[in-house]
């Protein structure tokens, strides 16, 4: 395997953007490219992640090429997935030896439509979508099954929220943050029991971009490149009745293959859009209480759909690059109730 490192990362996140996708994306890509110290034309491959249904327009990703420096023409690909999987495709491309570096980006505005309702279009179109279950309700079914199976309580969920929002105070890209008391959280009404508004991901518009580079070139460009030491992702059946919602079997496989426990972890950035999912993921990844979870505040503080997974990897990488940790696990998810999961193990030079 070739050693591949993250050398730069940039992002934008706001509760509601008045800019269009190209206008949001362009400065983010420019910042990531500039900080990589590579000229745009030197970057070997470009890969992006987005979803047409966020805009309600076919080929929504095509316009993004206006923003990313695609002239002269570039080697480029796109996944209709969270940007974390675009990073995976880029990492694979570097492994083939075809290229030595890649620009990865993703973008998405969650605010234009009723996102929890739009996500009902991700379900089985014959037996589920016609019932229009919103994404929050499906997560709540999982939450209740999880709480009842494990004996965890709504208080445990509130603790996750309180810690996340407190950590988010120092994150300029958080759209929700602040010191909150568990008791106050528990006094809030349910949105879809057992979940309350703060247990749900905030609507966020955003974009992110990252540059990854192979081997010695990474060392040349960056004082402390952040190496991708393990990388895997797995999917489960979509049907909520076809899998055990109280654990994340796909995360368990990905964690094993990525070698999460081949070394000591300093912290984890987990893509848990709903509070209970953090607890499911911690169990699946085998993370003990000694490991700091989501120092960025995580997805409860900022959740640009199609972007948030790549942001977890970027946040973890920037923290390691800044010397605030040596080894971390970053995770991304997509699909209802943690259907598909990606695990990336990062180490500082």
């Amino acid at each position, binding site marked *: 395997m070739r050693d591949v490192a993250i050398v730069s990362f940039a992002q934008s996140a706001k509760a509601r953007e*008045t*800019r*269009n996708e190209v206008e949001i994306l362009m400065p983010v890509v420019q910042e990531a490219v500039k900080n990589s110290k590579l000229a745009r034309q030197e970057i070997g491959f470009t890969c992006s992640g987005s979803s047409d249904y966020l805009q*309600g*327009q076919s080929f929504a990703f095509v316009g993004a090429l206006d923003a990313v420096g695609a002239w002269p023409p570039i080697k480029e690909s796109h996944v209709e997935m969270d940007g974390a999987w675009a990073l995976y495709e880029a990492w694979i491309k570097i492994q083939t030896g075809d290229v030595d570096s890649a620009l990865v980006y993703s973008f998405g505005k969650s605010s*234009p439509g*009723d996102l929890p*309702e739009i996500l009902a279009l991700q379900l*089985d*179109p*014959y*037996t*589920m979508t*016609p*019932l*229009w*279950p*919103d994404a929050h*309700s*499906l997560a*709540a*079914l*999982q*939450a*209740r*099954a999880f709480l*009842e199976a494990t004996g965890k309580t709504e208080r445990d969920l509130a603790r996750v929220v309180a810690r996340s929002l407190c950590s988010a105070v120092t994150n300029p890209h958080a759209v929700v943050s602040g010191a909150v008391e568990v008791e106050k959280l528990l006094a809030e009404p*349910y*949105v*879809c*029991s*057992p*979940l309350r508004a703060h247990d749900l991901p905030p609507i966020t518009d955003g974009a992110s971009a990252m540059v990854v580079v192979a081997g010695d070139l990474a060392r040349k460009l960056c004082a402390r490149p952040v190496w991708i030491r393990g990388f895997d992702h797995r999917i489960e*059946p979509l*049907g*909520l*009745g*076809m899998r055990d*919602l109280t654990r994340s079997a796909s995360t368990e496989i990905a964690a094993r293959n990525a070698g999460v426990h081949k070394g000591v972890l300093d912290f984890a950035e987990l893509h848990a859009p709903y509070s209970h999912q953090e607890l499911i993921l911690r169990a699946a990844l085998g993370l003990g209480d000694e490991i700091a979870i989501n120092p960025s505040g995580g997805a409860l503080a900022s959740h640009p759909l199609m972007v948030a997974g790549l942001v977890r990897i970027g946040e973890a990488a920037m923290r390691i690059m800044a010397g605030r940790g040596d080894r971390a696990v970053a995770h991304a998810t997509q699909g209802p109730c943690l259907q598909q999961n990606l695990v990336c193990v990062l180490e500082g030079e």
Partner: protein
Amino acid sequence: MAPTEAEHEAPLTAVHHLEYAYRRSVGPVLGRFFAGLRERTICGIRTRAGRVLVPPAEYDPETGDATGDDFVSVGPGGTVTSWTWVSKPRPKQPLQHPFAYALVKLDGADTPLLHAVDALFESRMRTGMRVRPRWRSETRGEIGDIACFEPEA
């Protein structure tokens, strides 16, 4: 009246309306399931490994192997395995007063089905409760033929 500077600079917005009535062919297995619903019966399918899937699928979700045609009659009664309370239903959702979405394991099935439960009050909902289907007055051969489930008396 001339727009103010702020109005001048604010981006223009409008509603983008997307509408299409998709016509979906359902294949032989769901075709049988929906035909059953039209007659107010519910069927699952038995996989080679012996699990009864509801709704039935053309394949075993764990392995990808084809399931064949071992259809099994299930329900109509079932047990709630998880639920959530929707206090403010959206216009497209099955009921327009507060209701539960629930996973319902029908008698004879190994996998629960997602549907709505009309319990009127959240306090009536609990995991393990028994429910039965309430059929739509005119069935059409689709999932909505089950208007919702309701608590067994």
